[in-house]
């Protein structure tokens, strides 16, 4: 059973539906006990980093997620859920993340060449930095996925799995051991997105 972490941010209906579409059973839950019995855990999220981080800790879910990772279960963060896996973010002040992936989250705007808008909203192509990574098993160079974000991960080192080009190279996916994250929305990226969810399920 896949558990989608419900901590009061965003609409999880599409995400649960996308797992159903690839034949998997997904439960949306904020219950630590259920999360710990899941085979795979997905951390979604939209909105602001600080607010989401606070909601996670208020529910005690930050510690639960760290324990799940220690136990070796696959964890996939999506969009803001991915950003929460890093050490810190500078969105509206400095906030500590879960520190499960190397690097940090910074505003894209000052890094972008002129004329590019933030948020980046729309479909952009993936450049696979680590095509052999199991999360990218069914993903091809140049596959299009759907992004909505103003902040992005920098300094991921060897955890960088895929990038996209938005005037500058932008981290699209990152992973280390059983912890992975996608900046884009696989549940909104058509077949290319469902392929990534399928690869995650097979971990």
């Amino acid at each position: 059973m896949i558990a989608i972490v419900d901590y009061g941010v965003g609409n999880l209906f599409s995400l649960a539906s996308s797992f159903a579409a690839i034949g998997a059973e997904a439960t949306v839950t904020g219950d630590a006990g259920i999360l710990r019995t899941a085979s795979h855990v997905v951390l979604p999220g939209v909105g602001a980093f600080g607010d989401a981080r606070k909601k996670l800790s208020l529910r005690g879910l930050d510690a639960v997620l760290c324990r799940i990772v220690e136990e070796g279960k696959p964890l996939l963060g999506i969009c803001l859920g991915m950003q929460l896996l890093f050490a810190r973010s500078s969105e509206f002040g400095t906030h500590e993340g879960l520190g499960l992936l190397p690097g940090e989250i910074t505003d894209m705007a000052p890094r972008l060449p002129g004329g590019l808008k933030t948020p980046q909203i729309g479909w952009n192509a993936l450049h696979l930095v680590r095509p052999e990574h199991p999360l990218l098993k069914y993903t091809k160079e140049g596959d299009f996925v759907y992004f909505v974000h103003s902040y992005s991960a920098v300094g991921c080192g060897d955890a960088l799995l895929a990038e996209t080009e938005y005037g500058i190279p932008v981290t699209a996916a990152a992973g280390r051991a059983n912890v992975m994250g996608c900046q884009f929305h696989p549940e909104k990226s058509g077949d290319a997105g469902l392929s990534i969810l399928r690869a995650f399920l097979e971990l």
Partner: protein
Amino acid sequence: MITKRIIPCLDVRDGRVVKGVRFQGLGDVSDPVSLARHYSEGGADELVFYDITASAEGRKLFTDVLRETAANVFIPLTVGGGIAGLADFARVLESGADKVSVNSGAIADPRIIGEAARRYGSQCVVLSVDAARAGDGWHVFAKGGRVDTGMDALEWIRRGIGEGAGELVLNSIDTDGVKRGFDLPMLQAVCAFAAVPVIASGGAGSAADFVRLFREVPGVDAGLAASIFHFGEVTIRGLKEELAAAGIHVRL
């Protein structure tokens, strides 16, 4: 590089698509779920559903349709029509919408934009503006384009972005339904200052109109249309191939 988006728009009343849809090979042409799936498979980058229902019963049918679409179609869904407050945002977001567009509701009470942006994030709040030429500029129209508010469109858009709208749908009343191309002067005027994505709407009659749109107003991020796609005059795939041939970056 990020691609230009092509967005078909479906008007839904009492759970059915209105504006006759004429497709070969699509059984029930007024079923929003089949049509949404058809467009998604054809390469649409996003879908917009406008709820033009007046009754509470119709509204319930709309959220049912939305839910079924979101369970079957995995591209972004924007929902508009009858959004007057945070309760409406919650209702459609819980039923699978990714973004919510506000129009008359925001004119009646502009605070709705900021309240929704704070609760759901700016990326979720789309300001939809119906505007028509008035003297040297453009006026904002309310109630589906029927009522001239007298408000300057550029000023209203500036305010909406300031309040927290994360995207803009600009529908030109002058070009809507005429099928002779988008309202390029109005789009140019908005793109000159808008720091959020701009979606052009109203006037598409051919693939060439989209080529002209993206060439002449490079700041436009997406083109939205309804009847041109519904009547099968232009397929999404065919349109995107023409755009690509013209050097415009699209997802194929």
